[in-house]
């Protein structure tokens, strides 16, 4: 399984980013290979409009099976994410990435 996190850094102890569209980084954890890779999304800060669709488009390219985030995607982003068949878990905005992953594993995150 490939798991995507919206984060403010690229390490396991980095804080999560509660925002979806304007998240600073997208980190992908590949459970099979036990590796982390990340995408720097900070250029989105310069976009006045359409952050949700732009970040969703990026996620479409990264093709994760699961997305762990905070507040959850907005309506436009959700429309795109539906096409991806990605399982979305929210409520992890105040955690570190490691805590978010553990909460996901113990089914403590709400599926959106």
């Amino acid at each position, binding site marked *: 399984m490939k798991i995507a996190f919206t984060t403010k850094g690229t390490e396991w102890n980095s804080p999560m980013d509660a925002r979806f569209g304007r998240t600073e980084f997208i980190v992908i954890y590949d459970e099979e290979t036990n590796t982390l890779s990340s995408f720097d999304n900070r250029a989105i800060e310069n*976009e006045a409009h*359409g*952050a949700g*669709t*732009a970040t969703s*488009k990026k996620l479409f390219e990264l093709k994760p099976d699961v997305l762990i985030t905070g507040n959850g995607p907005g309506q436009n982003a959700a*429309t*795109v994410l539906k*096409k991806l068949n990605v399982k979305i878990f929210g409520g992890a905005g105040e955690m570190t990435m490691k805590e978010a992953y553990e909460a996901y594993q113990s089914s403590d995150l709400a599926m959106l």
Partner: protein
Amino acid sequence: MKIAIASGKGGTGKTLLATNLASYWSERQSVVLTDIDVEEPNDALFLQLPKIAQEERFKFIPSWDSTRCTLCGQCQEVCNYHAIIQLGTEIMVFDELCHSCYACSELCPAKALPMVPHKIGELTHYHHANLSFVESRLEIGEEQAVPLIAQTHRYVDDHFSKDHVQLFDCPPGTSCPVIEATKHADFVILITEPTPFGEHDVKLAMQTMHQMNKPFGLVINRADVGNSDLLAYCKANTIPVLATIPFDRHIAEAYAQGLLVYEQVPAVKPALDQIIDFLQAFAINQK
């Protein structure tokens, strides 16, 4: 002359001032009031005028023709608003994000993105005696007020001369709808109340008008509440205070019944006279 009535803070009396000023002024000369607060227009509640025209308003958005599309992806590259994206073999258009710039449609090499109308609201034109009233109402669920505000300005320009007294009841705040609503104004009236909250928000509105190089003045509503900080600020910065409207229970009562308050409460007419005198003098100076 175009006069915009704006506020910064909401609920300070834009509608009260706009409807009363328009109606009272029209006793002397022709006035057109435009309710350009398209997300929540309410001047019509106070002006029961006969309707003379009603039009649906549209913006144009691209519609994907999958039979023509070659999936080159150029549309999503040129869109500044991420309103059109390619997901594999599908192009998705987000109507609410689209700013109708036509870039994707015009630049599509396969002509697979024709622009189609999308209803954004309705414009209604009322008229009686010396008073014309134009109201634009945004469609429920529509996110962008700016295109409808821009179209409403064009409608007023097409139907009324520049010499006509044109009043615009604007949206609150300092964001895009306010900029669009006030940008054609010759003068902007900012109405507020002398409270810390009213003062804070009207200062933001003043900064906005300053950056837009708009001449503006204040009307202070509910002048007996709060404190004198705002008046002191205006004096120190030579900002004209056109008039003050007292804090009077009778005004609230008449307003709550949908009545024009200057017909009910004697203290209001002198304030309106001061505003009209100021604006007429301003117009003469401009010429």
